[in-house]
């Protein structure tokens, strides 16, 4: 048995296909195809949640994605818990666990419901006004309390074990919506041969036909036709039909995001199935067939469980075979609720009364009601309801006065009319226009290449909808290159025309009342709140929205927007179009983080770049550090060594013997062409024309403002060929910077830039024994000091592999950088290591590299410079060619501030206590006893323990630094003040003799 309220013979589900699930710990039985909402109602459960602010008991309002109330937590296991799932969308599956939200300790008894009694204090804007002062209380008191009491579901606390996938897809025609208009448009477009995607957020196509009994299409029942039409489309090669797929965002140039829920309805999804599939669609034409959403009536206590939209009750009955109650009341300002009442009555449900606030319902409705023995109270309103956890009675009153009459009901269905769903149109930046005749907003001026058809376009008649959709489909197909095609023959009849209705508060909930007549169920916004907002001076609908939060919940105001607007307009004494309409923004319905992050997590979060020698480094115990996307060997601890000990040993070994360092991540750019030297002259402060092939030079690159941008060694390989190196982190932006100037400022130069960063593996061999280590492996190059002095480059072979061998040093030791094609990097490294290890050399990492270069006062761009440092500041004036007429930054260097006295200059620092190592970034002052805020002279840029110097060393940028040589300055720290002496930047081998070997 799948619930006492299941009506035999009604609906489309198969009674034999039962599904067991739990809700708040109780076991229920539903049918395959049920939503959680329909299955619970079938079992007589209407209380499904508590409201956000007042914790009022709530049931379902709708039967689809517009649902504001019935938000659930759906749990598969500890890791897979999804909060805030709409019970009206989630399909039940065997073994599903659903829990209600926003209640404590239980749904039936909720402590937070006291908020409802205190509601006079929780008026609109309450939070803004109350929790303003004192500021400190926010962190300690207000926020924790508010968070505990309010809020929606609970997020899972384990990593999501599901996987998600994505696809970019391009099509001629995207049809959003699989109701009659969408299907008609897709059938027509598909005939032209155009590639078509049609999507619908529900599990099935058919839209309103799922509940509109009595509609026929080409003579067959409407829903059957829809199913057949979707199947026909799915069978076509040029069509993709996506159900359970929500078009959630409409972006520029017909870029539309679709979220397909692949496994949420399955009991045992195949492991390879993604939970969701994100489709990023680029469509030449978009057809919006998004239908319309019914509005509720705004009256006192219109939010009790059992009170819902008439279309929802009709879908529960006609699709799921579920009666929403046994004694149903109807409250309407529109004809559509009558059809629901008639269907219910014919299914054997007692309809207590149809309360119509209008004098004159649509043609023939009173007669049909009389035939079914349903009482119709025209010119009446429901002015209140009662019932604790479910409606038990409605109070009905004649509009012109008189006494109220209580009618016992266990469900109340309502309709204030239909709101064309212009969300996607609005997201496309189209401007909606107020249609005064039908009192609704419709698509006005289009901003993108799209068309609206059917109910979302204000087309009410079924055949007119079909004709409009077919025409749009054919036109879209033809416009995107499809062939001429005959119209599909589609004849529909038996649907109601549901224009009309009302917007705003109904009788008994007007401006003179204080009742709780809910406009926005999810955010607990009442008609009174909106009026208060207007009284408080919010005259724009955008302000009213933010002050009351109307329409700002996860349902995006699907049912509340128009009511809110009408109430604000009335309070302002203006017409609705004058008050405007808030903008609908993506997403149409909430999208999971899983879909958005998609593949980009775990090892695919970001590319992890590894050098050709990475495997060797791992095998030799290297600890790695991240440098941008690169994984670089940081240091190589041996047994019993911590980082400090390992780095000290590496530093000693390099200077005493030699070390191998993986420098492959250095950026490399091959600059080739007859104007190569001329171009480098413009890019660097140095002069390049006179550099001979086979020689290297340290270059400094500035931005146009005169500040250091990058540095590196440049080797001239041939007259027209330079091998430029950049910092590891600077490689892409330096290439971009150089390309920019080459392409747009100096396009006449015959020179090209090619990134070779990854062509070459680079093995730095540094130290007194460097030559001895590599010499036996090298062919065709004379490595002697005379033949190959410091700052030279040669081409030849090493280990039988072509090499560009540079005699360069970033350590101050004699050394080489061996460039070999990357595929051979590891093999050559191993060959060099086999020579180096027996001689007592070591492999060293980036930390040792940093210490060694600091001992020599070599800067690291981005560490010792910060984008406001000139070559003069850094003590590199010698690298500026004085005679060059131009280079990037030449004018910037002449700016008044850059030539002014007192600029910060790079200097060395020695701590008075040699063991004290300064913190990088620490501020420096002249007088540590001055009052706070102290005058800062500068800061520490690099600081290390130097094993080779036997003391701590640092570099710092200090105002007038070089003139302060020998001065004592102070570094105030939280616990003490450190005395330092200003020195030069070279701490080791001041004369620079060691590089010459």
């Amino acid at each position: 048995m799948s619930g006492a309220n299941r009506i035999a013979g009604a609906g489309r589900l198969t009674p034999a296909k039962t599904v067991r699930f739990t809700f708040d710990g109780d076991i229920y039985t539903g049918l395959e195809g049920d939503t959680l909402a329909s299955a619970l109602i079938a079992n007589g459960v209407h209380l499904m949640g508590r409201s956000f602010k007042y914790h009022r008991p709530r049931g379902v309002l709708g039967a689809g994605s517009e649902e504001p109330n019935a938000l659930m937590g759906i749990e598969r296991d500890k890791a897979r818990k999804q909060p805030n799932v709409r019970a009206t969308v989630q399909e039940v599956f065997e073994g599903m666990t659903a829990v209600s939200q926003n209640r404590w300790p239980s749904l039936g008894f909720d402590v937070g419901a006291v908020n409802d009694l205190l509601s006079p204090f929780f008026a609109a804007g309450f939070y803004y006004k109350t929790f303003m002062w004192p500021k400190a209380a926010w962190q300690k008191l207000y926020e924790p309390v508010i968070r505990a009491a309010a809020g929606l579901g609970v997020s899972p606390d384990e990593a999501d074990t599901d996987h998600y996938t994505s696809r970019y897809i391009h099509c001629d025609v995207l049809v959003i919506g699989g109701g009659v208009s969408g299907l008609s448009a897709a059938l027509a477009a598909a005939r032209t041969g155009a590639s078509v995607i049609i999507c619908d957020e529900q599990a099935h196509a058919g839209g309103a036909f799922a509940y509109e009994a009595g509609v026929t299409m080409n003579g067959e029942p409407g829903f059957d036709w829809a199913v057949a039409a979707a199947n026909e489309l799915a069978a076509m090669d040029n069509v993709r039909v996506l159900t359970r797929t929500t078009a959630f965002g409409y972006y520029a140039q017909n870029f539309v995001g679709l979220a397909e829920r692949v496994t949420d309805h399955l009991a045992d999804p195949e492991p390879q199935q993604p939970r969701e599939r994100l489709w990023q669609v680029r469509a030449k034409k978009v057809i919006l067939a998004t239908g319309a959403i019914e509005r509720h009536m705004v009256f006192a206590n219109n939010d009790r469980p059992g009170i819902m939209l008439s279309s929802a009750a009709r879908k529960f009955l006609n699709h799921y075979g579920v009666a929403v109650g046994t004694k149903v009341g109807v409250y309407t300002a529109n004809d559509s609720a009558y059809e629901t009442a008639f269907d219910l009555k014919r299914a054997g449900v007692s309809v207590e009364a149809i309360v119509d606030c209008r004098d004159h319902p649509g043609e023939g409705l009173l007669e049909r009601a009389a035939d079914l023995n349903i009482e119709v109270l025209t010119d009446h309103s429901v002015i209140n309801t009662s019932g604790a956890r479910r409606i038990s009675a409605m109070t009905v009153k004649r509009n012109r006065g008189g006494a109220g009459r209580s009618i016992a009901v266990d469900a109340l269905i309502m309709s204030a009319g239909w709101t064309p769903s212009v969300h996607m149109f609005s997201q496309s930046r189209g401007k909606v226009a107020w249609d005064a005749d039908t009192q609704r907003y419709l698509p006005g001026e289009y901003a993108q290449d799209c068309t609206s058809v059917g109910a979302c376009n204000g087309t009410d008649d079924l055949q007119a909808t079909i004709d409009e959709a077919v025409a749009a489909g054919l036109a879209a197909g033809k416009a995107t290159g499809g062939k001429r095609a005959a119209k599909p023959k589609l004849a529909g009849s038996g649907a109601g025309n549901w224009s009309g209705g009302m917007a705003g508060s109904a009788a008994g909930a007007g401006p003179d009342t204080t009742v709780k007549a809910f406009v926005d169920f999810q955010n607990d916004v009442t008609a009174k709140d909106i009026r208060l907002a207007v009284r408080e001076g919010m005259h724009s609908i955008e302000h009213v929205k933010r002050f009351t939060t109307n329409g700002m919940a996860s349902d995006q105001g699907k049912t509340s927007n128009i009511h809110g607007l009408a109430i604000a307009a009335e309070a302002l004494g203006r017409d609705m179009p004058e008050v405007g309409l808030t903008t609908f923004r993506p997403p149409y319905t909430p999208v999971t983080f899983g879909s958005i992050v998609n593949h980009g997590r775990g090892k695919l979060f970001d590319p992890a770049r590894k050098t050709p020698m990475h495997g060797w480094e791992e095998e030799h115990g290297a600890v790695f550090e991240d440098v941008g996307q690169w994984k670089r060997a940081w240091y190589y601890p041996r047994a019993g060594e911590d980082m400090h000990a390992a780095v000290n040993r590496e530093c000693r070994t390099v200077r005493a013997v030699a070390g191998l360092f993986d420098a492959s991540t250095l950026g490399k750019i091959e600059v080739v062409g007859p104007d190569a030297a001329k171009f480098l002259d413009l890019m660097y402060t140095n002069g390049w024309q006179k550099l001979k092939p086979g020689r290297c030079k340290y270059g400094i690159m500035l931005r146009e403002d005169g500040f250091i941008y990058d540095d590196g060694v440049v080797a001239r390989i041939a007259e027209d060929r330079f091998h430029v190196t950049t910092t590891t982190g600077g490689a892409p932006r330096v290439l971009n910077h150089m390309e920019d100037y080459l392409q747009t400022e100096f396009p006449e130069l015959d020179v090209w830039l090619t990134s070779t960063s990854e062509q070459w593996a680079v093995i730095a061999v540094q130290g007194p024994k460097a030559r001895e280590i590599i010499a036996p492996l090298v062919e065709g190059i004379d490595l002697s000091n005379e033949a190959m002095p410091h700052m030279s480059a040669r081409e030849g072979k090493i280990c039988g592999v072509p090499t560009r061998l540079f005699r360069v040093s970033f350590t101050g030791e004699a050394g080489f950088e061996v460039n070999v094609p990357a595929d051979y990097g590891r093999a050559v490294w191993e060959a060099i290591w086999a020579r180096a290890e027996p001689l007592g050399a070591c492999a060293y990492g980036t930390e040792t590299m940093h210490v060694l270069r600091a001992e020599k006062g070599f800067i690291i761009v981005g560490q010792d410079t910060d984008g406001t440092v000139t070559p003069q500041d850094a003590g590199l004036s010698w690298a500026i060619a004085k005679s060059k007429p131009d280079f990037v930054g030449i004018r910037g260097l002449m700016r008044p501030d850059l030539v002014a006295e007192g600029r910060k200059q790079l200097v060395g620092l020695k701590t008075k206590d040699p063991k004290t190592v300064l913190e990088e970034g620490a501020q420096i002052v002249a007088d540590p006893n001055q009052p706070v805020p102290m005058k800062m002279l500068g800061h520490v840029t690099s600081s290390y323990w130097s094993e080779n110097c036997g003391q701590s060393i640092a570099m710092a940028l200090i105002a007038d630094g070089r003139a302060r040589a020998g001065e004592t300055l102070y570094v105030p720290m939280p616990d003490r003040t450190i005395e330092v002496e200003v020195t030069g930047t070279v701490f080791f081998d001041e004369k620079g003799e060691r590089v010459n070997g």
Partner: protein
Amino acid sequence: MADIQAASPQYPLDGMVAGSALVQITPAAPASRLALRARPDAIAPLSKALAVKLPQEPKTSAQGTAAKTKGRRALWLGPDEWLVIDESGADLMAACQGAGGTFSAVDVSNRNTAIIVSGPAAEAVISAGCPQDLSLKAFAVGACARTLLGKTEVVLLREEADVFRVECWRSFSAYAFAFLAEALRDPMV
């Protein structure tokens, strides 16, 4: 010198393999590659020297014209830029040395590596991370483009209707391979 053990190469995607019934993902064979940049005056001489006609239409590639350069391809990457790929291991730098006109040839054989994605779902798998329209109508056999795959830049070449060559820089190849292997898990592809 006689005792120098010649170094042997190690390729970035050695031993990697992924696939399903609908798609295979395999590392491409090692190849010689040339990053070629040229002024118009060098296009004809270079085409002759390399025995492959440098294409001048965007998004197109050309195959070698001589018998022994059949396996050689020149890919249009930009208005003065080509990527030349040769799986026979020919010395492309030597081939274009001395060709007339103004140009830049740089050996990038080891900078790039390639992944072959083949099978009926090849297009769908690449579309998991490539924003371009890869339908045959928009991206015909022989079409090529530098573009993106997930978070990395690639050069895409459609060798056959169901075969794509994904060229990327070597340190991004593990990411690109893992991305494709992840994408093919979706049975929908």
